[in-house]
């Protein structure tokens, strides 16, 4: 009882399936995402790799968030203190821009990695 042609074919196709599975399931390392929440509620998620300006108008005021070149920053805000604008550009997972008066949070999430190639769990700001 030797190995038949059919068996070889089967083995080959299974190997192919394994490779496909590997590519489908492998951990994605394609940069981070931006998650915006307003008063604890999800406003939207955006790719950090794209370019986008997001204008959010609320009763409490207006914020304009800019995503470009793999970084996100608060471009405009009419909150009284302006801390959110001063927080500058964020690009690392775990970092966040917080506009307290408008209860708005812009977080970098996803697979962004630090210089040692390992992701952070939290950032002390």
């Amino acid at each position, binding site marked *: 009882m030797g190995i038949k042609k059919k068996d070889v074919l089967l083995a080959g196709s*299974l190997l192919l399936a394994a490779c496909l599975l590997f590519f489908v399931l492998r951990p994605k390392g394609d940069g981070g995402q931006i998650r915006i929440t307003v008063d*604890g509620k999800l406003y939207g998620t955006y790719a950090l790799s794209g370019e986008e300006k997001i204008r959010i108008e609320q009763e409490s005021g207006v914020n304009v968030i800019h995503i470009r070149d793999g970084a996100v920053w608060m471009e405009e805000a009419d909150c009284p*203190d302006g801390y959110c604008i001063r927080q500058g550009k964020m690009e690392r997972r775990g*970092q966040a821009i917080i506009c307290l008066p408008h209860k708005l*949070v812009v977080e970098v999430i996803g697979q962004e990695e630090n210089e040692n190639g390992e992701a952070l*769990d939290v950032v002390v700001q």
Partner: protein
Amino acid sequence: MKKDFYVIALVCGTILAACFFCGCFGKEGELLVLEDSEASLEFFAMDTYMRVVAYGREDQANAAVSAAREEIYRLEKLLSTELETSEIYQVNAHGKGELSTDALSLLQRAVQLSEMTEGAFDFTVYPLMRAWGFMDGQYRVPSPSEILGLLGKTKVSGVLVDEEQGYVEFEADGMQIDLGGIAKGYAAARIMDIYREKGIANGLVSLGGNVQVLGTKPDGNLWRIGLQHPDGGKEYLGVLQAMDLAVVTSGGYERYFEQDGERYHHILDPSTGYPAESGLLSATVVSADGTLADGLSTAIFVMGKERAVAFWREHIAEFDMILYTQEEELYVTQGIVGDFSSSLLFEIISEEP
């Protein structure tokens, strides 16, 4: 039916191989079937943004983060300086009043921290904070005579606590207290207790600059905590790996205002009444005690490097610290050197001078 067996073996082997390459296995090679579920809540409280995370059985983890949020709301109602119904507000308004057990023990902790740091941590600086506009955002530079007057009301020794009666009274009119300097650290520490009570062994809280972790990550690895660079988003001061620790940073780089070309940040030196100019841009304190870490981070920032190093050498068993100076020098105390990594050069502060 030998052939069927052959096919099944091949399928199993293939899936196993795929799993291996995809990282479905844990570090030690065991199949991760019983993975902890993650529960998290994000919300605004105590004038900051908070995130609480717990890992465990789904119902336990959910119950734990809900209880954590409730505890923060409860403490906020008790300790707020803005809320008319809070115990601290009432004491500030009348110069005296009764305190419940929680508020009283936190007040005593604040007194103790003030003594320990020889006044670098001062919870009676509140009238000065108001004069500068740091409480309501109406920033102004008070006149030197106004500051001098308010410095007279900034003295922890003027807070008279009657432990037996649960009563506090201020020595002078116009004195006011704010326990906000340790409230978040205390809340983080309380949440660790709540997590344990709820059967949670792994968790993390980030309460606006106060981070505290319970146990390790669910996979057994240490938590990786990034320290924000005062210059902003691009770079980290470093990464600290930790378990069962609180990490708190104080810096003048986020909350400040500018007037006539001068920059005034929000951490006041209780001895001068002006923003602390200690040469530090950021001070991070690492300790198993969340309340201590919170209070000390402010105190260390006010002290400056020289005084902070001498202070650390007297309290080596209680905390470690990471300092970043205006000269862009980074210092790390001996106790955490093994768990700290940075792309920047740093100097180790050792026990012996």
